[in-house]
């Protein structure tokens, strides 16, 4: 697990046309110098948006990587949902604070909280 370097690579790609050109020319070679697992390299080169979200990449970084690959907004959101369905809750990072249980479970939990608040007169 080297979420820091996955995100560092995407941070540099998002802000640097030179890194974007290098990635376009040779995706694997552009990752040289970043400490990454085979799983992370595969997700970055495929690219596998759902897997990257599952690994914990921040959406504020990931959405630009998706846009770079011409992935439309609704498709981007769906790929993240599919990633959670396929691989399970987010492993690490900001979204791991609650594990990111998936949209349906998250909605159900918020509804339950609101119902409890109303019951308690809050």
């Amino acid at each position, binding site marked *: 697990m080297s979420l820091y370097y996955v995100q*560092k690579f995407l941070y540099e790609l*998002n*802000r640097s046309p030179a890194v974007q050109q290098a990635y376009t020319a040779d995706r694997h070679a552009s990752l040289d110098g970043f400490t990454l697992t085979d799983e992370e390299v595969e997700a970055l080169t495929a690219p596998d948006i759902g897997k990257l*979200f599952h690994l914990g990449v921040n*959406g504020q970084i990931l959405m630009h990587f998706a846009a770079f690959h011409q992935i439309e*907004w609704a498709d981007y959101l769906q790929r993240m949902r599919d990633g959670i369905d396929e691989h399970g809750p987010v492993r690490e990072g*900001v979204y791991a604070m*609650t594990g990111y249980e998936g949209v349906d479970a998250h909605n159900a939990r918020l509804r339950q909280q609101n119902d409890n608040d109303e019951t308690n007169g809050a």
Partner: protein
Amino acid sequence: MPLVYAGVCSHAPGIRGRADQADPAAKDALYAAMDDQRAAIEATEPDALIVIAAEHFANFFMNNMPTFAIGMADFYNGPIEDPAWLGIDKFEAPGDRNLSERLIREVMQTVDVAYAEEWLFDHGIAVPLSFLTPNFDLPVIPVNINCQGPPLTPLHRAYAFGEALRRAADAVPERIALVGTGGISHWPATPDSGKINEAWDQDFLDRWARNDRDALLDYDDAQVYADAGQGGFEIRTFITVSGAAAGSVGSVHHYEPIPIFAVGCTTASYDLG
């Protein structure tokens, strides 16, 4: 000169980039509110606009994440995002290095702050500027608070930072306007994008308008995350504006959840008297 304007607005990328997917009436009402905010700022005849943002890994990353940063350059470029994706063409916004340096020196008397002589504006600043200074003819001073990469800036430090900015703005001869930008509750760029906790937002905005420092600081990150998403961490920008307007009360001019924009779209300002 005393600070001439202190307000807040939303900055979600969808406001420009996905404008065609929103309910037209909701979008038009928001755009009209942003136009009103521009008019209100222009009426104060500012010499510069401080934009307090919560940037999203465009310039600052976890290799060296500042708690607070202030721009110190004569020009800034943006947007860092694909212009077609964001719906904002590439631009160069004027800065004022000399003014920035004087403000930074004063802020540093009480709050440790990083300075940056280059800064690529992301949507957090570009979207507000596209409404508030659409011709990019007003010097901008970008400010950032770490709302993205934990450990985040503590809320009470965000308030104190606002007080320091106020003291600095009051000390320079220029007329300074100040706008904080951010979301209230939202889950941006995640599978839950579009979810908005309106009740939570209204409660926060009530605290903000009353400028009730104790109530504004009475949040912890775990609960904010549960109730308001990771986007809720951006309340720091609003709270800094409250600090800059300590002693003043404010008004919410516009609030409407627009799911395709992923946030309850807001404009509000303090009455600085």
